[in-house]
């Protein structure tokens, strides 16, 4: 999915969370959304998902100005920063229900479920109630739910938080697979080393404004580094914040 965000403005009361944010994401790319705490990353993701109303601006999905929440739910998968699940249902039942509600065929669901359970090492927790799971396992459940769906764009809000190194590797592989299928990924993260290894391009956000967008070369240029320099996302990020 090709995503265009044009001059997006969002305020909470009198506090401006997004001050005219604009960027574009090509289909089949993995994009990192980078910024300090309170930069507006989660707000931006929620605006794209139409979970929040914004005052000004436009969001185009494949050139179309609007999709209903129903259409968005069909096309976009979301890994929220806080896990969302039915507390009374076990992990497996949550997955089953989510697949049913997402309209997956039984065969498709069984195949995907098996793959995700193996990839995310969830087999031993299937019969557990989610509230009894560790933070990392809850996160893995949310990732599994997001990847069950047939999406064209996935928005992930801090997807690596609470995961152990093996799971981080598995999730990186999952994102890589999604990219090969020409699906688009937008990841909000603070883990810059990790973002550098999986992202094709970056959006730097601070205090509701875009500091820089683009590929490694674009970011280096905007940050004032030489293109011949070895790209280091952390270095570029620090430079961008200082320049601001």
């Amino acid at each position, binding site marked *: 999915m090709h995503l265009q965000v044009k001059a997006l403005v969002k305020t909470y009361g009198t506090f401006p969370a997004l001050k005219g944010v604009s960027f574009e994401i090509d289909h089949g790319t993995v994009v990192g959304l980078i910024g300090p705490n309170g930069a507006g990353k989660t707000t931006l993701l929620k605006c794209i998902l139409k979970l929040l109303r914004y005052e000004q601006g436009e969001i185009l999905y494949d050139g179309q100005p609007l999709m209903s*929440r*129903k259409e968005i*739910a069909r096309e976009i998968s979301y890994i*929220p920063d806080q896990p969302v699940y*039915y507390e009374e249902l076990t992990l497996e039942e949550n997955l089953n229900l989510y697949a049913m*509600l*997402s309209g997956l065929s*039984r065969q498709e669901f069984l195949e995907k479920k098996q793959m995700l359970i193996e990839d995310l090492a969830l087999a031993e927790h299937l019969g557990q109630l989610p509230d009894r799971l560790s933070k990392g396992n809850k996160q893995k459940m949310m990732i599994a739910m997001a990847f069950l769906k047939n999406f064209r764009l996935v928005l992930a809000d801090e997807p690596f938080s609470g995961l152990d190194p093996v799971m981080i590797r598995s999730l990186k592989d999952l994102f890589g697979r999604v990219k090969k299928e020409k699906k688009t990924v937008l990841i909000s993260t603070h883990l810059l080393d990790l973002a550098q290894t999986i992202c094709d391009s970056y959006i730097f956000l601070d205090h509701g404004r875009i500091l820089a967008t683009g590929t490694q070369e674009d970011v280096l240029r905007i940050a004032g580094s030489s293109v011949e320099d070895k790209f280091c996302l952390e270095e570029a990020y620090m430079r961008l914040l200082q320049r601001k």
Partner: protein
Amino acid sequence: MEILGLLLKNKFRAYRRYLFKRSPFFGALLVFILFFTWEILPVIKANMEWLRPILPKIYHLLLVLIASRRILFSKHPPFCFSLPGLYFFFTTPVNHYLVLTGKLLLSYFPMLIISFGLSRLAAQLQAGFLHGAHLFFYLVATANFSWLLYNSNSKRIYLWRFFIFLAMLILIFLDLPSLFWLVCATGGFLLAINSTDKINWPKYESHCKLAYLTSKYFLNGDWGGLESLMYEYKEPPGPSLFFTRIYVSGYKAFTYGQILIMSRYPFLAWLIFLCQCAVAAFILQTKDFLPFFGGTLLLLSGIVSPFSLPVLKTIQKNEQGFFLPGGFIDFFRGMALFPLVVSFVVLMIILSILADRFNPIWHLAAPILPAVALSYLVVVKGVFRSVFSGWFIAGTLLFGLFFFFIRICFFRGVFLVLCLFIPYLFVSWRRMRIIYEGEHGV
């Protein structure tokens, strides 16, 4: 002493804060208790003749229940540390023996109040022989035995529980001197304070956390916190072969989810549901409007409360990013189907009980429209989230009127209410759809 002073200061500040913060709640509770006592006392006095022989039995039953709760079915410790208290207990070189003694002695204080209250009640009613000091030492002994059993790692724990319970049961009904109970309580106390090295710390810590957070959330009025705590400590359900074999899509998936969530409700919830329906059926026998309306409200809350919870949860989860591709029509159909079936059955039974004579066509036809209205109100309550929502109150009033006219077979009235229902349906439907699909969806 300084440590004790600081601990007391912490307690005092916490209670003062809660008391000020929740003062309207405590005020309302006090008014309610006074009102209830004022209303209930004359009723009890008027029925004293037939209550008098029953009350001693109730009193004894209470004592047996306390023993069974503490000895036979006890899963939790009789006293808990606060979370910070436990942390300090673990991480500072305090005298564990002394702290545990203090904690045990403090835990007897509520028992003193309970035994005083119960003794006063028993004296008033001239019921029961275990009161006063007897009762206090009995309560202390059960608490001490409960603590010892809680920490026991004996393989025959269930046998121990059973024998101690049986012994206490026999002893309750023997008129033993209070000295006997004092010896039991003291023996249990000495064993308990010497149990520091036998405490199952991980289990105890988990229960202390539960007790501490429950009281904290309750005093803060944090119902969400209480709910999440309940789920955190809930045992995982057994494997459900029935539900895992079913795979449905579209609106049926919502019904499936609703049934699955409701199947996990505790038994008590279903008991309350049945009691509400039974009491409602009893009240609805009247043909006076006000009592009938009260019965209707009881019936409505009985059906709406359990069924609307899955609706509410799905709405909340949708807003948190649990994106469901089905539109509002799918959601509505899925969520209203199961309550519709249950409402139809319940209303059919109630109307059959209320009917003067047997008429199968009437018994089948009469519940249809009220059941549809009830299932609609289930979704309304879930989507608008509150019983105080204007939409739900308006729907409740219309339903009460509608059901009353059906009850007295006043069909012109039924038609009139149906005419009022149409604009209500149209506007509330649109509003619910906006909430479910977002502003852009409509």
